[in-house]
């Protein structure tokens, strides 16, 4: 269920998600948070099993904190995505998979990034990306609307309309849109 969207622009990244949690054919919650900030410059959009995804996000937060305390500077977006993917991968190999599809997005010293990690632990870097049951519909909007030179505000509007389109036709998505905008230049440099 769910629709999440991540878009990379030249001056930042945007994440968007609907707010519905499904229990089979029942709407379990209408106010679910599917966007999680790992810090001021990195965030994750979750789709799939809520419990798996939330656990994974908390574990990633703890591991990121420990590493950045040890070495004195925070993780890049790629390092964060790889960290999460490695946890998911070891779950899959141990026959205890995490049923998740995550979008890891953020800004770091090298600019804006959108990565996606599925339940096999594979990581790919994308310009834009959608996951969840509404993603085929969201992709229709994204493929039409995305331009390589899109600005942050354009990306924000495109992300919102992609999720709204999915909410119109996908019964697993609905009840409003959450949007998270991470502009360039907000990457923390220290650990304090």
């Amino acid at each position, binding site marked *: 269920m769910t629709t999440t969207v991540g878009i990379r622009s030249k001056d930042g990244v945007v994440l968007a998600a609907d707010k519905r949690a499904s229990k089979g054919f029942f709407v379990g919650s209408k106010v679910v948070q599917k966007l999680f900030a790992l810090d001021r410059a990195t965030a994750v959009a979750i789709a799939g099993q809520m419990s798996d995804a939330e656990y994974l996000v*908390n574990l990633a*937060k*703890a591991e990121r*904190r*420990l590493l950045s*305390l040890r070495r004195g500077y925070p993780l890049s977006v790629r390092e964060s995505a790889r960290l999460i993917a490695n946890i998911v991968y070891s779950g899959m190999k141990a026959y205890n998979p995490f049923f998740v599809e995550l979008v890891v997005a953020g800004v770091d010293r090298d600019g804006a990034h959108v990565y996606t990690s599925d339940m096999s632990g594979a990581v790919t870097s994308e310009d834009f990306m959608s996951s969840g049951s509404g993603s085929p519909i969201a992709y229709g909007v994204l493929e039409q609307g995305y331009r390589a030179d899109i600005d942050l505000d354009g990306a924000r509007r495109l992300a919102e309309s992609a999720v709204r389109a999915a909410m119109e036709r996908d019964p697993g998505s609905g009840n409003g849109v959450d949007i998270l905008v991470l502009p360039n230049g907000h990457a923390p440099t220290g650990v*304090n």
Partner: protein
Amino acid sequence: MAADVGRIPFFYNTEGRLVQVDYAMQAVSRGSTTVGLKTKDFAVLASQVKPTRPLLEPAEKIYVVDDHVGATGSGYIGDVSTLVDDLRLAAQRHRLVYDNPIDMATLSRQLSEQLHALTMYAVRPLGASIILAGIDELGVQLLQVDPSGTAFRGAGFAIGQHADEALEAIGRGYRPDLTLDDALRLATETIESSNGGKGQIEFGVVQADTRRFERRPLENGG
């Protein structure tokens, strides 16, 4: 027979002392002078960074454990940093399990248990004392934990070289209504007067209003 037992270094000697633990405390008292101060509004950690050789960056002496807790130590730096690593791990584990920042009692208890375990077996007790400064539901807290595993809670601590003189100086200058600037000055003067003003001092501060521990590193790295 009794005399023989006393000669096994990791058991009690005939005076009832654990000599290995005494030696560990002695190792701490050779470390750099390190103090902690606390009022109800803040806690300050300050540690002397020993004068280094040219071309050598001074070592880190104040450690961030989590958002709301900091630590410093004296003794063998390798032992101190191992303990700090474990404190950081305990803090993050607590967040994972309870979705809440760790409290000072749980954190210091974990440290005590770890140090105490090394007094029970034929191993080397760690030569490090740790001062923890942090904030939790019970307010700002300052704790010292020694190689024996003993934990002290209080408003002023000093460990390392000249700790007795330093503690005396803190006792003379301490008032419960100290401002943060006063406390930083008192810590500086204490460390400088106890060892002849050699080296630099690194600070860490936790405040009740921000509920955050902040390290104040030396200007030239560290």
